[in-house]
């Protein structure tokens, strides 16, 4: 929407500023994308802008880098690993949070306020606070007053460790957001369903869940991108030293810190492959994504 009463000199100036900013923002990606299509030797021999000015770039464009990084360097494995980490890490917290949000929004029970305060308070905890003890918990279990509650599980390096870690870190926010969303649903509909004799389980699955799709999608998009783009949790719980445990982000980080020498043709193409999924999600679900981001402003 544009305002009508604009002064004539304003628009070119604001356009100029915007175009400058947009070009500045695009520029880093541009050279990077271009280089990903050039053979490794050419990247090192001539700079991409020189190649562009002389026109030499058009004859050397190739998809070789992509097939090399994906099939020979094992990025395909990291790619599948990323999905094995991300999909359950999105579904588990959302399911648990949706149940809890339903109870907080529509049911009466003892200690409701205190429990909700507990959920909200745990949003304050930054991920770094729980990282190391959680790692120890997964490795050697936990004891309370000498009684072993959780045995030594030795989970680190398995996907299940990352699922639980992401569940813990994502749950408070998910519960909080979904409760907010469900509070906005028409209460009379849910009450009339209960009067008709529907159990809480039925009301939840048949009525509240379909009505909350927008809220769930917003958080799901947020959590999916967050987990997919996460490097810290993957680094800690899966490790970066065993190639079969790499996810896309840790794989690209290994490329970028120079584990494989000066392989810019692999660094560029690898990083770009890692960006494809988030970009697809971002462009197709932009509406939900922005909403999830704004809601996620307080994720601990």
């Amino acid at each position, binding site marked *: 929407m544009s305002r009508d009463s604009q002064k004539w000199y304003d628009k070119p100036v604001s356009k100029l500023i915007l175009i400058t900013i947009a070009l500045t923002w695009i520029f880093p990606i541009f050279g990077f994308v271009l280089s990903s299509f050039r053979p490794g030797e050419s990247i090192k021999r001539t700079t991409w*802008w020189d190649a562009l000015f002389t026109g030499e770039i058009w004859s050397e464009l190739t998809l070789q880098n992509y097939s090399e990084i994906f099939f020979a360097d094992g990025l395909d494995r990291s790619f599948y690993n990323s999905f094995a980490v991300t999909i359950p890490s999105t579904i588990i917290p959302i399911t648990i949070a949706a149940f809890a949000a339903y109870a907080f929004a529509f049911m009466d029970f003892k200690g409701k306020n205190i429990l909700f305060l507990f959920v909200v308070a745990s949003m304050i905890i930054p991920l770094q606070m729980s990282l190391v003890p959680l790692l120890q918990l997964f490795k050697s279990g936990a004891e309370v007053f000498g009684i072993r509650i959780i045995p030594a599980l030795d989970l680190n390096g398995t996907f299940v460790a990352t699922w639980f870690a992401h569940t813990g870190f994502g749950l408070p926010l998910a519960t909080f957001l979904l409760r907010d969303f469900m509070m906005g649903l028409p209460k009379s509909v849910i009450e009339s369903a209960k009067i008709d004799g529907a159990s809480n389980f039925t009301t939840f699955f048949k009525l509240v869940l379909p009505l909350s799709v927008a809220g769930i999608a917003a958080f799901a998009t947020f959590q999916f991108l967050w987990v997919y783009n996460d490097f810290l949790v993957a680094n800690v719980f899966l490790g970066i030293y065993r190639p079969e445990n790499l996810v896309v982000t840790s794989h690209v980080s290994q490329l970028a810190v120079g584990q494989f020498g000066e392989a810019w043709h692999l660094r560029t193409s690898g990083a770009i492959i890692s960006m494809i999924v988030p970009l697809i999600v971002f462009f197709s679900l932009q509406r939900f994504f922005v909403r999830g981001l704004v809601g996620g402003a*307080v994720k601990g």
Partner: protein
Amino acid sequence: MRYYKLVVMKEKTQRQKLLNFGISTLSLGIFPLIWFLSQAILFRELTELISRNWLVVVGIIIGSTFIFLLFYGMNFFISLADRDSRESLEAKMFVGPSIFMIGLFLFYPALRTIYLSFQDRYGTSYNGFDNYMWAFSDPEMLVTIRNQIIWLVFVVTFVLIIGLVVGWLSDRLNKGEAFFKSVVFLPMAISAVGASAIFKFIYEYRPPPLTQIGIINGIRVSVDREGYVCANNKIIEGVNRVVGDENCLPPIGWLQQRDMSNLPFVQNLDLDNWFNSIIVNIPINTILLMVIMIWMFTGFAAVVFSAGIKAIPNEIMEAGQIDGASELRVFTSIIIPYIKSTIVVVGTYMVVTVLKAFDIIYVGTRGDLETNLLAVKMLDEFSKYRNIGRSATVAVLIFVCVFPIIWFTIKRERETIS
């Protein structure tokens, strides 16, 4: 007769209570624990047993569906209870797993971190405030804290300012608003690791005879000096102009520069002057790493601000314009006050994000050369120096910085709701 009935009912409630207590511990305490353990053990064994490709497929399927077993199992136990108490048990069943998981995976570890911060490097014996003394006296830690402050001040300020400008200006366009916002917002979808890789390509340094493929050094070595033609390993006027020619500027390893002392113009400065001594000490690598984060998050700020600006009623904007206020005046006295709370929200978000910045440093410099931040330092202490106590202390420091901010946000949010 009536009295007798009452006694029977009372007895019944007593027995009921016992039964309900049994059912609720079973369904709310023991079952979730068993569920957690069985999923963990099942998957750990699968990791050993089946091939990698199958593991991914099975992992996605099991990981996504196992959670429903938890609720159906609990529901089964609760359906054994009598009708009257089922409602309250069901409520607990709906909430229980959320509380259980937050408690086990977030709350308990966080408390343990506080406890560990008073322990020695193995986390086995109490050593008082030693770790905290270390945190505020160790030179490496002091540099880390300094960097964290620089990051907080500059990243948050720049993200807010550029975000406001883009949000404000794009709102006034007739065409192309969505395009400009998308372009600036794009980096938000990219992982910080990817963004760091992109910028490392720009900052790239290679030892002199090699072509400078990073654009900053590429331009730097191609600058002609006093009539002498320089170039980046190119043949110009029949001469091969190589990188490292002593008449030309040398390339610089930008991410290795902890201060400005390697730049030629600084070497002629009078260092006794206080202003110059500040200039010399500007940490170039830290600034270049901050650029990555600004690049990533400005779009987020712009999109949120633009939504805030759109929410301003047209009458208010028009009233300002009719009164003859200039565009800039409208911006400073109408738009900014109107979206003040949005600015606070975005600012808060950025402060928390900067305090937890990890990937950029890790990929950019690995925290070396005085670029470290708290989140990286925390992991370094744990995995590199094997000091659990100190690692926990750094984590507590992050928490202490984040705590008031989020507390304030939640309090404000509750006020707006009520």
